[in-house]
């Protein structure tokens, strides 16, 4: 025992010596004390996440966990709220054609959308510098640089020019590259603090990755001038935790919780133990898998624990892409039979206790474009008899072994998905059993996610079926997944997402026209037409819409899950534990 104590104390001394210099803590964290295992209050909230996070530079960060956290500190002109509506955030109002803040102008012989965005008068960076049009213009300039690795440049390049009103630096005129109805969707168009970052960009912008390496987000990430949201980043320990403290210069209502710590716990199996032992107080949407959440929900009720599990339908669409080059799947009757043979209501009840909704098509119920009207789309209710009839019609006759045959070939498919994903593996088994009942043989072949997404689906190397999910946002164009030009190939650098290989000229036309249609009612009509083709031709087997899950303490108020890509941290200032 003495030896054990000696070793641990010696190690801790070494640990203390080593970690002292690593901490980037500022005075903001000083004076606070830990409340592990203590009663919850607005003094501190510890959130557990299971995904890694990165540098907070909003132009170059791509990880979901970073987005989750950075929304506490960095906001955009507008965003989608928990009700799925676009709302102004840094802007006073969203420009529209109706309120005359957006117009179509002919410039250089070409039509462009010109919109006026006015930034809130009291919006400022954490060091007190006003947030102005110049910060958006500077962000655009950085994003346009060939030496900066911005993944999605179009968000920034869609705005060709940003001009500030000479009398009001917060009144910005955005000139867009073309006429587009979604010009106001600037939820990922972030400003950069020009007063701090411009000298760095001037010095290092001409060197490849020079800006990223020397940006203050990398070199001095706790500088208050880098943030303008409800909280400032007061400490970052990559791979471990980030600490946030209220931003005294925040333009909105003052944050109630005095310190928020987001802690990385990479093993989802230990998140519950960490919660129950007081290491964390809340499990974010990037924590428990649905099966873990369902199990914990039961424990909470049985043991009367002071937590609540929240389930929120999300914009994540779980489905099976069919490879339409497969000779058996070329026949629409076979595709329809596959869909009729799935009892989706039973599937979601049996596997998810009804906490996830059966899917009808690619548009999720949170989206204004959603429809479940049988007059507009084809709905496939579980009907084994209809599945049998369609297969018989297609010439697939039931054999003595219980499987269908045609021209000496068995009706057989391979369903592929990500190995190790327990939920998907359960779904696979469930589907295999359902299809077996109509005489279809389906074998499972799973691969690690990086092989499955990096090679198999990307290069359409799956033989017949690929089970995975799409993450979308409300009212996002389906062109990338449905247009025939988006069928991944070596020619387009495998950048498209039409992995089914679906070619429908009408859908091509509609998805192209949709992007330029300014009338919202007409857009909805067009989307419904697309969905009609989608559900009629069945290039994809819709399964279910996933739900986001989070575990919160029962005393927590104003915590609303959104279910889309703009997380609940967009309204972090409203959260309270008292």
């Amino acid at each position, binding site marked *: 025992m003495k*030896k*054990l104590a000696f*070793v641990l*104390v010696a*190690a*801790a*001394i*070494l*640990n*203390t010596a*080593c*970690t002292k210099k*690593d901490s980037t803590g500022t005075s903001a964290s*000083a004076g*606070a004390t830990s409340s*592990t*295992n203590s009663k919850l209050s607005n003094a501190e909230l510890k959130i557990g996440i299971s995904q*890694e996070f*990165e*540098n907070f530079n909003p132009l170059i*960060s*791509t*990880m979901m966990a970073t987005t989750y956290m950075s929304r506490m500190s960095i906001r955009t002109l507008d965003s989608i709220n928990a009700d799925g509506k676009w709302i102004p955030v840094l802007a006073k109002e969203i420009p529209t054609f109706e309120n005359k803040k957006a117009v179509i102008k002919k410039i250089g012989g070409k039509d462009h959308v010109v919109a006026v965005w006015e930034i809130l008068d009291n919006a400022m960076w954490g060091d007190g510098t006003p947030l102005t049009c110049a910060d958006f213009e500077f962000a655009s300039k950085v994003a346009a640089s060939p030496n900066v690795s911005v*993944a*999605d*440049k179009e968000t920034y390049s869609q705005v060709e020019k940003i001009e500030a009103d000479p009398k009001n630096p917060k009144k910005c005129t955005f000139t867009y590259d073309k006429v587009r109805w979604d010009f106001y969707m600037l939820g990922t168009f972030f400003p950069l603090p020009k007063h701090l970052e411009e000298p760095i960009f001037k010095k290092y912008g001409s060197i490849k*990755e020079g800006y*990223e*390496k020397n940006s203050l987000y*990398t070199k001095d990430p706790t500088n208050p001038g880098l943030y303008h949201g409800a909280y400032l980043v007061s400490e970052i*320990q*990559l*791979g*471990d*935790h980030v*600490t946030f403290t209220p931003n005294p210069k925040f333009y909105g209502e003052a944050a109630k919780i005095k310190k928020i*710590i987001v*802690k*990385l716990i*990479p093993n989802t199996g*230990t998140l519950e*133990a*960490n919660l*129950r*032992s*007081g*290491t964390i107080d809340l499990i974010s949407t990037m924590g428990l898998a649905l099966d873990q959440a369902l199990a914990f929900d039961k424990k909470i009720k049985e043991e009367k624990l002071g937590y609540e599990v929240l389930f929120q339908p999300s914009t994540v669409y779980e489905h099976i892409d069919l490879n339409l080059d497969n000779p058996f799947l070329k026949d629409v009757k076979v595709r329809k039979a596959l869909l009729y043979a799935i009892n989706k209501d039973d599937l979601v009840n049996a596997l998810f206790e009804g906490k996830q909704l059966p899917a009808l098509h690619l548009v999720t119920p949170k989206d204004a474009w959603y429809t479940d009207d049988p007059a507009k789309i084809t709905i496939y209710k579980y009907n084994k008899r209809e599945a049998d009839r369609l297969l018989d019609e297609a010439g697939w006759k039931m054999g003595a072994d219980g499987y269908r045959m045609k021209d000496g070939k068995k009706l057989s498919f391979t369903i592929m998905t990500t190995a190790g994903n327990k939920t998907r593996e359960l779904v696979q088994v469930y589907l295999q059993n359902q299809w077996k009942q109509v005489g279809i043989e389906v074998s499972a072949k799973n691969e690690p996610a*990086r*092989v499955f*997404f*990096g*090679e198999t*689906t*990307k290069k359409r190397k799956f033989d017949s079926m690929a089970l995975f999910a*799409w993450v979308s946002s409300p009212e996002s164009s389906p062109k*990338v997944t449905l247009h025939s030009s988006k069928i991944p190939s070596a020619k387009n*650098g*495998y*950048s*498209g997402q039409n992995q089914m290989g679906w070619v429908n000229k009408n859908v091509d036309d509609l998805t192209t026209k949709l992007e330029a249609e300014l009338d919202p009612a007409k857009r909805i009509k067009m989307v419904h037409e697309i969905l009609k083709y989608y559900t009629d031709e069945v290039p994809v087997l819709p399964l279910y819409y996933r739900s986001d899950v989070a575990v919160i303490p029962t005393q927590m108020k104003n915590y609303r899950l959104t279910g889309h890509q703009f997380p609940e941290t967009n309204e972090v200032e409203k959260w309270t534990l008292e």
Partner: protein
Amino acid sequence: MTTYILRRIIQTLVLLVVLSYLCFNLMTLMPGDPVELMISSNPKITAEDVARLREFYGLDQPTYVRYQRWVSTILEGDLGFSRTYRIPVSEMLGPSLKYTFILSMSSLFLSLLIAIPLGIYCALRPNSKFDYIVNLLSFAGISAPSFWLGIVLIIIFSVKLGWLPAGGYQTTGMVYENIFSEILDKAKYLILPVLSLSIQSIGRFSRFARSAMLEVMRNDYIRTARAKGLTERVVIWRHGFRNALIPLITIVTLSLSSVFSGALITETFFAYPGAGRLIYTSIIGNDFNVAMVAFIISIAMVLVMSLIADLLYGVADPRISYE
């Protein structure tokens, strides 16, 4: 001796270059480069974006060109930029290596402190009750999977008893009144991961120590030493233990070579921000720069430690020469 060391250092350097090139090639063979991973997470990325990003990261170049570029930046003292974390590799890898070193060394010291005396004691009393019990516990320790051990320790000591934290390396946000409170706090966080790692190594080391000592104690020179009238203490430590050191040196130096490689499962279970987890994430995320630096460190440690082991053999047994 000097010639031998110089020759081994040159061999080590050559091996490092060859193995690093092999690792680099193996990494490029894995499906999904950083751009492909971006495409799968962002459907908005266009064909133009793909071409631009490939060129930006140099992924459009042949492997040997990319390797040359990587070596030249390393030689300039720049470890590169992490594609996953978007910060310089040195800033990220440094702290992780330190945490891993602390965890691994603590576990190694604890294991040796317990296992070697246990093994020797068992060897001196073979087939005794004590020997049987230690054997049983050793095999149990070796057989217990670390993920199971980790979760059991967390459930007992964190959830049920509430004595120890379930994960982390210090109480987040804690302000320490003095150095002792800091040491105590950090020690608290080390107990479970160190125990989890040590339970397995104690079993392994004690088995090695027992068999090495048992083998030595059967030799004629031990009988001769006893016949000369030497005390049992001198027989055991000067004549027995010193000769049993050779296999122990091998296993200890090999264990030392992995002190920077991390313990992936333990670090993941206990949310410990060590290098094991970082290396795994960088390989999965195709973060070439981080993964390559980590590979080099691991390879270098194995090579250096085997050199040290070879030198220590000579210290333990003067009959071994380096001509």
